[in-house]
């Protein structure tokens, strides 16, 4: 049996896997070897990635036989999550929660997120003159923001943060990580149960008031936790590493803080860290840019190279904060586009602004190419970011 599979490994910290870039230039829609489906269609151009992710006939239902995300271990006890549903079921479920993530509601969180970031940087500065930025800043900020949204009481923040960090820590043996995940799931379940009897001003309480089933809501709470934690942390670390490695970019932000929203958008495009959610199963024969994809075939829309498509982003490998890269697909495209994207943008903006303002002497404590990057995915980022000030 062949175990050949398409390489997802990054060799250059600033660029998508070389093989993906080659395909985009030479063979932009092509079938490549894939572990659990034999082959998969690699979609690499921006327009084609939008076409695939925007068409729900490319199904996200990973319980379907032949779906590239079907692990083969469907237990029946796992709740189907938003990310595994197709419209119209998906639309109905997303409608229940999306009111929590409107542009205005997220913007209203700014003062609280600023407070979290200031306190986190205070603690980092008080700890000495060097730190692993992942542990000191990148992970705690999104963890505390989600804890707030879910209504985790202040006295439980330590437990919440510790287990969230253990869950994604590669130095922790797998049993420890699974145990941390179990502890968090159980905790979210208890939180939901407590909100049934004593509602608060949080997502879980509002969902219960709107008639949510407590078991389903526990699944949703946990999904929000894992979706918004490590991803945001990875982006914070990559952005700070980039600014420290390329002082001319840091200087631009220091000289003109109004560049920040455009910088966040450009860095989202540039790193496109989330790849794992873009696998689909064709449920009909569909032609994409002249190539016929048949029902039953697996498809992978590579947002990472789509965001380097020179037809859409001139000089795609240059970081340009004034590019106006709003049409990137770093948060995906189509009905499953990231629910928390406006929150992620706001967190990144606030954190980077605070880093630029409050840490003028911040520097990398190891050479850039010795930073342990998450070269193998599934999400790109860094494991550790040693810094000093």
């Amino acid at each position, binding site marked *: 049996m062949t175990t050949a599979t398409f390489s997802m490994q990054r060799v250059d910290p600033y660029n998508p896997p070389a093989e993906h870039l080659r395909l985009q230039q030479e063979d932009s829609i092509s079938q490549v070897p894939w572990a659990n489906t034999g082959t998969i269609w690699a979609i690499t151009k921006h327009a084609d990635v939008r076409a695939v992710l925007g068409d729900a006939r490319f199904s996200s239902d990973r319980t379907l036989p032949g779906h590239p995300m079907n692990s083969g271990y469907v237990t029946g006890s796992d709740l189907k999550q938003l990310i595994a549903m197709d419209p119209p079921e998906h639309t109905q479920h997303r409608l229940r929660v999306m009111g929590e993530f409107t*542009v205005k509601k997220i913007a209203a969180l700014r003062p609280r997120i600023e407070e979290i970031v200031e306190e986190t940087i205070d603690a980092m500065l008080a700890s000495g003159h060097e730190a692993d930025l992942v542990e000191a800043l990148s992970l705690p900020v999104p963890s505390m923001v989600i804890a707030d949204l879910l209504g985790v009481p202040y006295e439980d923040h330590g437990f919440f943060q510790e287990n969230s960090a253990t869950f994604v820590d590669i130095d922790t043996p797998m049993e420890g990580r699974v145990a941390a995940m179990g502890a968090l799931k159980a905790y979210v379940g208890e939180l939901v149960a407590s909100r049934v009897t004593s509602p608060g001003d949080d997502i879980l309480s509002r969902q219960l008031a709107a008639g949510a089933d407590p078991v389903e809501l526990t699944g949703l709470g946990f999904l929000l936790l894992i979706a918004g934690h490590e991803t945001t942390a990875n982006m914070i670390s990559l952005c700070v590493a980039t600014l420290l490695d390329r002082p001319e970019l840091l200087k631009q932000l220091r000289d003109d803080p109004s560049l920040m929203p455009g910088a966040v958008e450009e860095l989202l495009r540039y790193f496109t860290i989330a790849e794992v959610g873009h696998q689909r199963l064709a449920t009909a024969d569909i032609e994409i840019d002249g190539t016929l994809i048949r029902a039953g075939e697996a498809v992978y829309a590579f947002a990472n190279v789509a965001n380097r498509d020179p037809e859409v982003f001139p000089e795609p490998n240059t970081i340009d904060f004034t590019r106006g890269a709003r049409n990137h697909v770093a948060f995906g495209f189509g*009905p499953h*586009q990231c629910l928390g994207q406006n929150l992620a943008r706001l967190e990144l903006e606030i954190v980077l602004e605070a880093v630029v303002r409050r840490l003028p002497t911040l520097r990398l404590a190891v050479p850039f190419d010795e930073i342990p990057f998450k070269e193998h995915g599934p999400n790109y980022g860094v494991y550790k970011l040693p810094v000093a000030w």
Partner: protein
Amino acid sequence: MQITANRSTCIGSGQCVFTDPDTFDQDDDGLVMVLRPAPASPDELAAAKEAVHICPSRSLALSGEAP
């Protein structure tokens, strides 16, 4: 030109509001609301076009004559 929005496919990503807050808003459920359905200038039209292009659920459309 006229902007139309399909609220039955809208997923509340808010990207239209983010792109063109003068033309689009979201209700309490997150669903799109068109505040200014007829762009009155080339600038307004350009902003609306970008929002239509960015909409991830393809719930927005522009039709008719340009201003």
